[in-house]
Every structure is written in C-alpha cells, then in structure tokens.
C-alpha cells in the first residue's frame, strides 16, 4: 500500500481557503456540513488549521494580495496534501479573469489535484468531486 492510499483512506480533514471569492462557494462548503448533506458521516470535517488538514479546498481567484498567503499556507500543510480548486473562479478565473488584481487561476500558483467547476458547485457536485478524488 502506497503512502497516499494509507494517508487518505479514512477520515479526510478539510481546510477551507478562500483566496478571493464571492462567498457562494464558501457557503456551499458549509452547507455540506449541515443536516441535509452532512459530509461528517464520511469523517470529513473542516479544521481550523492547515497543519491538521489532508485536503485544501481553495475557492475564488488568487488576487495579488492573497498570492503570498496561499503559497505560505501550502508550505505549512503536511505533505502529502490534496488541493482542490473549487468553483469556476479557482479553476479558470471565470468572470474575474480580466480584472487588474487577478494573479492567475489556482493551478498557476500551486499544484492542483482536482477541479470542481460550477458557480457555485452544488453540494452534490462537491461530494462527487471528493469521491472521485478518493478513487483516483
């Protein structure tokens, strides 16, 4: 069994990082925790510090001001770590790609393991994305 399978087999702990988002994706992530979708039954939960996390969920575009912080947080995360680009903005830049404060979509800044597109992705899409990631 490889390191990755061993590490990611049981409960995934998620760290939510909002780079420069419109809040929609962030709210939908929280929505996943609440009674209707309840991802905690899969052992997934949001953690307060990236040092405890297995997965980093990044929402929104990377702005000029957050780029430094995103890199810093990626450095702090214990490896191996999975990075998920969450929502259209972090996948491609979306509607904000032409703005002057745009530093690039997430994969130009840190390596990305999975993309969940949508504006915002529905909670079902989030679950589908995470399940695909686990079976990768």
């Amino acid at each position: 069994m490889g390191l990755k399978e061993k590490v990611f087999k049981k409960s995934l702990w998620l760290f939510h990082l909002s780079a420069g988002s419109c809040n929609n994706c962030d709210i939908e992530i929280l929505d996943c925790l609440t009674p209707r979708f309840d991802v905690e039954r899969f052992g997934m939960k949001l953690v307060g510090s990236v040092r405890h996390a297995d997965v980093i969920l990044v929402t929104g575009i990377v702005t000029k001001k957050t780029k430094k912080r995103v890199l810093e947080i990626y450095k702090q995360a214990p490896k191996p770590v999975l990075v998920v680009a969450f929502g259209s903005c972090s996948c491609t830049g979306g509607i904000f790609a032409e703005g002057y404060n745009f530093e690039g979509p997430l994969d130009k800044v840190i390596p990305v393991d999975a993309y969940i597109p949508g504006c915002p992705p529905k909670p079902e899409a989030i679950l589908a994305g995470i399940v695909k990631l686990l079976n990768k």
Partner: protein
Amino acid sequence: MSQSKQAFIPIGPYHPLLEEPEYFKLYCDGEIVREVVWETGYNHRGIEKICESKTFEQVFYVVERICGICSTSHPFAYANAVESIPGIEVPVRAKFIRSIVGELERIHSHLLWVGLAGHFLGYNTVFMWAWKYREPILDMFEIITGNRNSYAMFTIGGVRRDINEAQCQQLEKILDQLKPKMDMLIGAVMDDPVIHARLKGVGILTAQDIKDYGAVGPTARASGVRIDVRRDDPYAAYDMIDWKVITAEAGDVFAKAEVRLLEILESIKIIRQCLQRLRKENGGDIRIKVKEIPPGVGIGHAEAPRGEVFHYVKSDGANRPVRHKVRAPSYTNIPTFRKSCVGQTISDAAIALAAVDPCYCCTERMAQVFDYSNGKPLFGGKELIRLSQKKTLDIQGKR
C-alpha cells in the same frame, strides 16, 4: 498606554472564525480590547473596473458575483439605477417576482447569520438548526430560478423567468411548512438563557454611532434608527403590499439578532401577499424591451439583508457604463467595530465583529449534477446513507 505595551492578537487573514480572508488586529490590555485595526483588500477583485468593460446587460451577471449571499440585492440596486436613466417603469408582474426573490434572499441570509452567530458563540445546535431550515428556501430558489445561488433573474426592464400557477402552489406549500418551523426556531433562540447571557449588553451601538458611520440595515434598526429603503424610497412592489419595519432599541448584539429574526416573519408575509397577487393576475408581461440607455446618471439603491446597497451608474449613451460605483452595506457597517468592539473582552469581540453580518466580498444556469455514464442524478439521501455505511464497513473489515 502606548500601543507597544499592549498585547496584539491577530484575527486573520485566514482564521477559522472568518469565512473570507480578512485581517483584524486586536490590541488588548489584559482581556480588554483597546483598539482594533482593520486590514482589507484580500478579496479585492476590481469588479467596478470589470463592469465598465461590459455592456449594461452583462453587468447584471458580474454584480451578482460581488457577493454570493446578496446575489439578488446587487442586481436589484443596479436595475433600479439603470432603469432610472431612461425612466422605465417595469411591468407589475415583474415587480412582484422581483420582490419575491428579494425577500427569499432576506430569509436565507438572516438564517445564515443566525446559524453563524450560533457557531461563533460555540453553540453549534443553533448553527445546525438554522442551516437545516435554510435548505427549503434554497429549494424555493431552485424552483423559481433554477439555481441555488447566483440566480440570474434580473434584466433591464423586468425579470427573465415567470412564476407559473403550479410553481406558486409549490412555493405556498413550502411556506406553509416553513412557518411553524420558523416560529419554533425564533422562539427557541429568543428564549434561550445562554444566548441572552452571551449577547445582551455586548457590542452596543448608539444612534449617534450609526449616524457617524453611516451604518444601515438591521445594524441601524437595532439601535432604534428607523431607516429602510423599502419604505423610504419604495421600489419594486413594496408600496403595494402591507408590511412593517422592524426596529429594536437596545443596540446590542441581541437586538440585532431580534431584528433579523422578526424580519424573517415579515418577509414570509410579503412573499405570501406577492404570490397571491401573482395568482390573481395570472398572465401579463414580465419584461419590456429596452433598446438603449441614454446619456445620464442613474442612482439606485435597494434594501439588502444587511442594509442598503447603493449603485451609481454613469452612461454616455454608449452601450456600457462610463463609471459604475458600488457600495455594499458592509462597507459602512464594518467600521462600526471601532465603537462596538473597543472596551469589550476578547471573547465578546468575535461576536461583536460578526454582529453586523460582515460580508467581505460582496451564466447559464440550471445545474443538477448527473453522472454522465448513466444520466441519473447523483447522491440522493438514501444513496448517501448507503455510501456512509459502506465506508464504515470497509474500514472495519480491513482493520
């Protein structure tokens, strides 16, 4: 005491307390907060500049993404601004539909705040409850607009989708089920001794503070300042229906919670009346065609869940705005932390910061998630239970 002798506590930019990147520096003397410094700009995406490169029609979908929670309020204020340049009167049916969407957003946003406030207090039961009852609202949005957030309902001269008779019935049914749950939730939150103990007398804002900082919305109304754009400068259908402005006098966090909770009931009342009118006047236009926007200045505002959203649009007769200025309610609400946080203890500062419901960020639709291989919707409730049981068994079996 000089600043250097005080203890310094950073909140942010990435902090479990905050949804969005934001940086508050608390300078404390013992446990008492003496000064708060606010650093922002992490979320700055340059939307106003982007808007100036889009056509009037396209701007709707950009302003919708200023903030995911207020994704009706910004188009609402923008529509009021742009339609005021040529002086368009939108059809009555469109007015009612606009009001329904606006009020649904108010309910979902207030529930969201109540939940998060509970979360900040370490009272996760409230969080789970409020967000559970928020789901039916998102279902209603899905019925009306086809998406849970970012609704793309508004356009110049009206709305893009009609609400038909069958949908009215569906919506009314959901409202009927929702009302008793809301009564229960509101009663439970307002009578809870823990919430009373944590929120009463915390983060007080006086009417003078509200005026000094230009605070709006529930933040102002909780301090006894009776301002509400829906009443002061009526737009959409608000002057055609019966509703009242909710205010409280105390100005503390509890009063803000009270105002928001009671506004939920008021919003349910408004939606019911709008739906009745829609059913009575079945049929009619939902939009009028607008050929061009003449040169001029358009100023529009609308009452978002957090307060007044203000849009200033300047047109030179071309098909895109020359200048587009957006003022979200949080822009004037957040700076009140200077009055509400200073002098509080550190543990109360968190809820005092959250009390104004800060929102830092401020196209094709219909998304249902299908498995492409067989075309069936993914993950119903039963499917989720089956999966979670399978996972448990897997873990046990291989241990």
